[in-house]
């Protein structure tokens, strides 16, 4: 690590900010000096009872946990420099397939910061939280309308939590029908959280292949369907960005054996206001508010994964649920737990501030605006697909929905360069990379989701960047340089194998 130990700890040097250089930013722990402090606490005049009288010896720490000791100034410098080492939607296009990295309106941040929302205690009595309860009831009904469902829970904190909640609803429903079923069908194109959730839901995942057109092979599906199938998990459009055209047949087949249809809403952005999961025959839907409804992704979260269900499943929803009691002027809001609730799935009421952002987004857009979101998201994706077909292979050469999956297979054959190399090279062209190597059924997959907030100029620049990369790959020099991309980023290609081989998961685990 000589290359970096030159620099650490480097005090107020800002050379780790790409603006000034490509050095390493020392950790908080290297900036730390005993005796330094940033904290300031309120003067309380509370009697200064000695610690010994407050905490029995057996429970008392010998010494306080060693954290870091820095001044406020160094704290600010450190995290501001780190922020300059981080790409984000606010810096530029982020066509990360399946993640819907759209621009998030700043007004949502302002709403989430409102004192009357941000500083409410989750256990305060309903008399003190009427605004929050109303907000949640309002959001629930909007989500039900958008999905074509009857009721929803807002508790799940992300999509995967929604999936598991939905699968437990499936299980509870079948149990109520007096039977237990053991299998849940998922397509081979499914997102990894789906099979993982199926297992946690106590089911066995049965995978059905996709057909040549990238959709569920209905024949193959029929073959696996039986009385032991609790249901099927689909996302539509699927992870190939393709609409499951046979969805009605699929629904009939699954319902035919008494199974339920679960809709993974991560791709809902494609169909907002155009077609609703409920109308396709789905019984359970989870939504990724942080994708479709523009909650910023926070470097990996928080999100929110509400689950909406049809009438027959409503009695099983998690509780307590915010409800309106009384009507008109003397309408109040309170909590109620459904009769056959599967129980809580969150410590409190879900990621409330994320819910407030989503409601804001929905109200600003309205029905028409949401429909337009879908239309333009699909327009952007198809423009890119068409423009880039030829530059890359198009495994499924037909119109896509909100994202398109291309393949670098031919590029690899011709030049040895892989989808990964294209992804890394794209960074230096000024864009975040698309999702690569997913879905698994496409070789050298490049999964590109521009979203509706990117302009035609941006799409042209993005396509131009892809084309320039492929053009450069033709020459040997070009290919060699691409294989080593990126060159200008704060760090070059990162040794992932070493990270796994010699695990250093904390600063204290660093080899001294």
């Amino acid at each position, binding site marked *: *690590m000589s290359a970096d130990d030159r620099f650490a700890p480097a005090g107020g040097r800002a050379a780790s900010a790409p603006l000034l250089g490509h050095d*390493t930013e020392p950790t*908080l*722990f290297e900036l730390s000096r005993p005796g330094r402090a*940033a*904290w300031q*606490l309120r003067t309380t005049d*509370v*009697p200064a009872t000695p610690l010994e009288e*407050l905490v029995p010896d057996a429970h*008392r720490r010998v010494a*306080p946990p060693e954290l870091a000791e820095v001044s406020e100034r160094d704290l600010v410098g450190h995290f*501001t420099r*780190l922020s300059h*080492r*981080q790409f*984000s939607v606010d*810096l530029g296009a982020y066509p990360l397939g399946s993640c819907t990295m759209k621009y998030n*309106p700043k*007004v949502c941040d302002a709403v989430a910061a409102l*004192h*009357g*929302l941000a500083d*409410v*205690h*989750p256990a*305060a*009595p309903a008399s*003190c939280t009427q605004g929050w309860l109303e907000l949640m009831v309002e959001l629930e009904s909007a989500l039900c309308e958008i999905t074509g469902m009857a009721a929803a829970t807002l508790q799940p*904190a992300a999509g995967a*939590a929604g999936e598991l909640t939905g699968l437990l609803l499936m299980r509870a429903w079948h149990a109520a029908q007096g039977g237990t079923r053991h299998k849940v069908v998922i397509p081979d194109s499914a997102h*990894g*959280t789906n*099979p993982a959730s199926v297992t*946690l839901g*106590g*089911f066995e995942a049965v995978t059905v292949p996709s057909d040549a057109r990238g959709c569920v092979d209905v024949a193959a599906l029929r073959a696996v369907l039986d009385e032991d199938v609790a249901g099927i998990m689909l996302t539509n459009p699927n992870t190939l960005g393709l609409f499951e055209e046979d969805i009605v047949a699929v629904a009939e087949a699954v319902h035919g054996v008494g199974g339920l249809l679960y809709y993974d809403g991560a791709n809902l952005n494609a169909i907002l206001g*155009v077609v609703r999961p409920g109308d396709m025959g789905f019984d359970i839907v989870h939504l990724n508010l942080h994708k479709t409804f523009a909650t*910023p992704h926070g470097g990996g*979260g*928080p999100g929110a994964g509400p689950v909406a269900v049809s009438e027959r499943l409503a009695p099983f929803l998690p509780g307590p649920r915010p409800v309106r009691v009384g009507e008109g002027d003397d309408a109040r809001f309170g909590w109620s737990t459904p009769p056959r609730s599967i129980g*809580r799935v*969150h410590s409190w009421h879900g990621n*409330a501030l994320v819910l407030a952002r989503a409601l804001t987004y929905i109200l*600003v857009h309205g029905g*028409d605006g949401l429909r*337009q979101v879908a239309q333009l998201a*699909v*327009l952007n994706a198809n*423009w890119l697909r068409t423009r880039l077909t030829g530059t890359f292979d198009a495994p499924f050469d037909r119109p896509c*929905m909100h994202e398109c999956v291309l393949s670098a297979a031919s590029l690899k054959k011709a030049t040895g360069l892989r989808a990964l190399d294209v992804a*890394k090279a794209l960074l230096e062209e000024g864009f975040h*990379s698309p999702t690569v190597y997913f879905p698994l059924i496409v070789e050298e997959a490049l999964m590109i989701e521009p979203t*509706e*907030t990117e302009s035609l100029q941006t799409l042209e620049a993005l396509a131009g960047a892809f084309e320039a990369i492929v053009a450069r790959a033709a020459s040997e020099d070009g290919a060699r340089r691409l294989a080593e991309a990126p060159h200008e980023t704060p760090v070059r290609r*990162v*040794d*992932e194998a070493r*990270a796994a081989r010699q695990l250093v998961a*904390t600063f204290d685990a660093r080899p001294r």
Partner: protein
Amino acid sequence: MSGYTPHTEEDVAAMLGFLGLGSLDELFAAVPAALRLAGGLDLAPGRPEPDVVAHLEDLAVANRPCGRDLVCFAGAGAYDHEVPAVTRALASRSEFVTSYTPYQPEVAQGVLQAVFEFQTLVARLTGMAVANASLYDGAAALVEAVNLAAGATGRPDVWLSHGVHPAWRQVLGTFAAGTGHLLRDVPLRHGTTDWAATGFDDLDPPAAVVVACPNFLGCLEDVAAARAVCDRTGALLVVAFDPVCAGILRAPGEWGADVVVGEGQALGMPLSFGGPYLGLFACTLDHVRRLPGRLVGETVDAEGRRAYVTTLRAREQDIRRERATSNVCTNQTLMAVTAAVQLGWLGTTGLAEVALRSARGAHYCRQGLLALHGVEPLAPAPTVREFALRLPIGAELAVERLADEGFLAGVALDPTYTDGRDDGLLVAVTERRTRAEIDAFVAVMDKALR
């Protein structure tokens, strides 16, 4: 139409032309006509930002937030600790807020290093070897801990102290329907877990023994006793800890915990009506390959410079799929970054000071309340920041009455803690409560109990 989509009519026309389409609707040719929404969504038409903000302000005004409106004495897992402007300013940097999971480490060193520092801080707080990059909340962390233990031991049983947060126990119960875990409730006696409760020795040895310290009633548990149960049964010890009390309490790692879970809200997050909060998860190195969720590791780049990357990915759902140790994907990274900033601001001395001052305030407040007519301690066991009382009137009634006077008096306890009665009140005091506030609170409580 919203101001968020950049497409001009010319753009749309040009793009449709490029695609050889005549209208936006044609983009959805693949959607069976019968399924398409004829009338569009039955939602109000879009409204301009200022109108919507006004509506959300109306909703906000209909709440009673903690602060000048309600002086907060409520806790139960959500605490009113100091959050300085500097934490808010740094954690809201748009690079942290508007990025996603660091799939491309070359342009994500900011989030990766911040999370690496978070992992280090949590490891130091818990006294464990490794911590993950966050989970949804405390309950989710407990669920993952139990899953890890079940996977590690191949056993279904879980011995769960009744002192663990009721909502967490409920969540565990909900998910147990899928995992098939058998949850055994271990009762409390005098406010702490009664590991000698009859009947347990006849049971199959458990995968995990779960204890909270401080527990839901604020009492300090004899974790050594729980450790002993594990040593006897071969179960893993799962300890639910509190990251602020950790400033003065012995670390779970020192008690011999195998897995430590906790709720991280107190590390810089506003009360937020319950979320987004921060699930803390740490364990010993033996279990790192069963660790749920993301883990950031240090490595080097092609030029030998220090660099960070998510590692041991083979555990995760996108690779391991139905055999993954967990289904978590999106977590609470922004809250983890917030906690790293907040812990950086507090530092070694600040966290201990917050814990000490909170304990002092709670001690002072408890004395004051116990002096009131008809108020009794629920348990004799020592407490730190939070304590439980029995009131001469219903706890919910007391809370309503004090709300009218400008105090959030605490949280009414689940009757299982008060042999079926509704008179249990859980009171929390943080370092932000002044002596004057506590005195006023006690005085108003006195009136309310009459």
